[in-house]
């Protein structure tokens, strides 16, 4: 960096001092809330600093809520980008159309220890265990909030909620009436547009919406284009009705089509370096329909029934085509027993059936499988001392046709010594069930050309992962958490969470049979590996979130996350040792971010978002990524009440930087570029 000339520093201090004086004098004019009429109250703007903490004060878990306003003001154009706002979450962009998202460690393109739900519908794919982020989206303006729950949520949400649960909740259709038109364009966000219409139907409301976009490609380290184009179109609807007194019905649906590009490093025994860079095309198509009914029973207790059907198709020509149908039903009942027990219990059933045609480097056997899951849970929120001490005991029993029956227990304690402070602790057990890919896929992993380190022979060695004879076990975690929240002042709140997790039976692989093959030519050695559960790990960390409004029009939200992850092989097998090494270099140890939101006038907003992510892996590891700092800026102006124009700059501090090297379906390592876009939002 060029050192700033001292005159410039003096100048900035002067400008800053002037700004400070101005803000102090502005602050000394407190509004008088007592004599405002109802009409004026409807016009008054309110600051929202307290809302989050108010709501969260009572939750005995590490929860962070990303509000619609947060999303809007961050300039984020996709759900994974918005998730960067939450502490404890590691979001790494592999390419312009690929993300690795995880909570509290083990990040990968398919972060398999994180359960994600959108309006109660699981978007966790059983194919590779994880979320295919490029296929999941909605109208961002329709998202009411994203609740990010760190730590196991399995006792409530079921298997695979090992390290966290993300709930994406959209707004009720009553809150999205009228028309909305969004359009924009930029350097990375080449073009995007969305439209929504909300209206009334009978005793309720509805909305229909659609969106489409075209995104630019990222680049490789040496400046070549990444073939990670992205074109998508999506339509959806939601309706909410009050049927009878106290009964509410919600119906929603979506359909999408998604074209993305990718570049794979395909292992090839004929290639000099053992890999062939191959441009791939991935198409995703899908649709779902979800219905939910909530009603109050005669004794005052509340019940909810939800069902959905989801069809998706994921195709990578030359590799595989997956078609999947999921049917899910869920019933919940909440009742108060006496003065002290707030009980929630429920039953669930899920069917997920697939058909996978595969060719080339991946093959699935059998090509069709169905997965059945039945579950029952009960939670009791027990008041030990009114308004002061609560204990929450919960357990979920799940059974599936692969790994059998699992109890998933959780105990939490919540102590609120005063209106402004709370302390909570939790102990939980959770599991991750093996994915379809782990159970049934044979994949060519790599080729060591003759003469390469590790291959003294004159023949190439092809490493291929095949189905094992032993059945795979669930991965298990035992998690201990402690949290503290305090509202230090009406405009300042603090949220701290610490955790220690012990993992066992993490999935890895071991060396198996070795054979010599003549076909296809050239003659080569095939080294097979079979999956096993031979890695154990432990993690610990701290997450801190502060929410401060120094002035009524200025809000600052710093967060910091620390994570230490140590994994080791229990078998000593070289594959398992290498896999443990990958886990050890998948996550940054330190992450911090600072968001500043200024409402300069009631028509102008200026927002800033500074983020730091520490390095991944050791310098000479193939998964190494240097630390990086990024800056996003947003300026928005409302020339009229219904029209908002904004200018957003993203990743402004460097022209390009890498964020992650994927270890599964290895592609070319791409770098994320600086981007600028303009956006118009018109409500009419």
């Amino acid at each position, binding site marked *: 960096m060029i050192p700033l000339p001292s005159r410039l520093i003096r100048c900035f201090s002067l400008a800053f001092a002037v700004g400070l004086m101005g803000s102090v004098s502005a602050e000394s004019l407190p509004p008088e809330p007592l004599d405002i009429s109802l009409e004026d109250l409807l016009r008054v703007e309110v600051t929202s600093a307290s809302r989050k903490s108010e709501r969260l004060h009572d939750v005995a878990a590490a929860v962070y809520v990303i509000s619609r306003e947060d999303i809007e003001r961050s300039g984020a154009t996709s759900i994974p980008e918005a998730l960067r706002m939450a502490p404890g979450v590691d979001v790494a962009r592999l390419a312009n159309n690929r993300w690795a998202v995880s909570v509290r460690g083990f990040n990968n393109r398919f972060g398999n220890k994180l359960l994600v739900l959108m309006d109660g519908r699981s978007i966790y794919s059983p194919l590779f265990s994880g979320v295919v982020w490029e296929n999941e989206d909605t109208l961002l303006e329709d998202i009411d909030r994203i609740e990010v729950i760190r730590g196991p949520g399995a006792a409530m949400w079921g298997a695979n909620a090992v390290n966290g649960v993300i709930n994406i909740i959209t707004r009720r259709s009553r809150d999205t009436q009228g028309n909305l038109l969004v359009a924009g364009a930029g350097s990375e966000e080449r073009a995007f547009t969305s439209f929504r219409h909300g209206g009334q139907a009978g005793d309720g409301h509805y909305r229909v919406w659609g969106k489409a976009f075209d995104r630019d490609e990222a680049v490789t380290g040496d400046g070549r284009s990444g073939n990670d184009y992205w074109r998508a179109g999506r339509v959806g609807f939601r309706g909410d009705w009050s049927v009878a007194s106290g009964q509410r019905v919600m119906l929603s649906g979506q359909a999408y089509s998604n074209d993305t590009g990718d570049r794979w490093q395909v292992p090839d025994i004929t290639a000099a370096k053992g890999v062939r860079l191959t441009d791939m095309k991935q198409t995703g198509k899908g649709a779902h329909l979800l219905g939910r009914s909530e009603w109050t029973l005669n004794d005052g207790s509340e019940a909810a029934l939800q069902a959905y059907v989801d069809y998706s198709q994921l195709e990578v020509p030359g590799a595989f085509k997956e078609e999947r149908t999921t049917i899910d039903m869920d019933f919940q009942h909440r009742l108060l027993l006496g003065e002290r027990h707030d009980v929630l219990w429920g039953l669930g059933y899920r069917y997920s059936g697939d058909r996978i045609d595969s060719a080339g480097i991946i093959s699935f056997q059998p090509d069709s499988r169905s997965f059945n899951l039945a579950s029952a849970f009960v939670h009791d929120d027990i008041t030990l001392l009114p308004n002061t001490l609560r204990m929450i005991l919960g357990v979920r029993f799940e059974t599936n046709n692969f790994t059998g029956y699992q109890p998933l227990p959780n105990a939490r304690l919540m102590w609120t010594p005063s209106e402004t402070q709370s302390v909570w602790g939790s102990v939980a057990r959770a599991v991750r069930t093996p994915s379809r890919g782990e159970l049934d896929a044979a994949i060519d992993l790599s080729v060591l050309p003759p003469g390469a380190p590790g291959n003294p022979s004159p023949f190439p060695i092809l490493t291929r992962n095949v189905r094992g004879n032993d059945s795979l076990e669930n991965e298990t975690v035992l998690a201990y958490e402690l949290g503290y929240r305090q509202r230090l002042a009406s405009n300042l709140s603090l949220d701290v969470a610490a955790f220690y997790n012990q993992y066992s039976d993490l999935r890895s692989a071991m060396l198996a049979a070795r054979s010599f093959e003549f076909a296809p030519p050239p003659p080569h050695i095939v080294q097979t590996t079979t999956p096993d559960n031979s890695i154990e790990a432990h993690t610990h960390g701290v997450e801190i979130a502060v929410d401060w409004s120094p002035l009524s029009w200025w809000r600052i939200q710093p967060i910091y996350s620390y994570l230490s992850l140590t994994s080791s092989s229990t078998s000593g097998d070289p594959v398992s040792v290498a896999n443990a090494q990958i886990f050890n270099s998948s996550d940054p140890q330190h992450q911090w971010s600072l968001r500043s939101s200024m*409402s300069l006038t009631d028509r102008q907003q200026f927002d800033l978002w500074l983020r730091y992510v520490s390095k991944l892996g050791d310098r000479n590891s193939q998964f190494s990524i240097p630390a990086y700092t990024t800056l996003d800026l947003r300026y928005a102006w409302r020339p009229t009440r219904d029209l908002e124009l904004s200018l957003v700059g993203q990743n402004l501090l460097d022209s390009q930087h890498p964020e992650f090297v994927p270890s599964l379906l290895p592609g070319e390592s791409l770098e994320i570029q600086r981007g600028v876009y303009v956006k118009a939002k018109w409500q009419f």
Partner: protein
Amino acid sequence: MNSQTRCWLAVLLAFAAIVTTSRSLSQGTLTEAQAKAAFVVNFARYIEWPERAFTNRTAPLLICALGRSVVGNALEAHEGRQVQGRPVAVRQLLGIDEARPCQVLFIADSEERRMSQLLRVVAAQPILTVSDADAFIDSGGAIGLVRADQRLQFEVNRQAIEQAQLKASSNLLKLARNLADFKGSH
């Protein structure tokens, strides 16, 4: 442009920012809790209670708050003010069973999970229920406060108000978000 010119330009910009921000501040910005409390007190001005709701003609108008929320604290700032010729009294409740003497009951959104059970306890009593919880009027509450971008709005459940034997003035109904086309006739 030399660096000194740039410097003065920066100072000028800072001034401009102050002028614009002070302008917006003079229009009044409240914390969300202050605004919600002000709404609750204002609602009481537009509601007519049956005589039996009060012990006598000079009894205070009792506004009660239930659940964990700073709105309860913000309500206390209104204690002693006059509404419909009665002084306002504010009380924080520990449980719903203490709600019987209240004329207005604010239920914080922390109680969202057991809202319909709480409302069942005070149903048919002359108590105006207000909350900032999601879908409050769908659960059977009388007035729900809802956030719309930077502003607060409210929704009215006329059926719930009638059941509590209260009368709401048409001026209140006209301002309710869900009754935007209300013309004042039944």
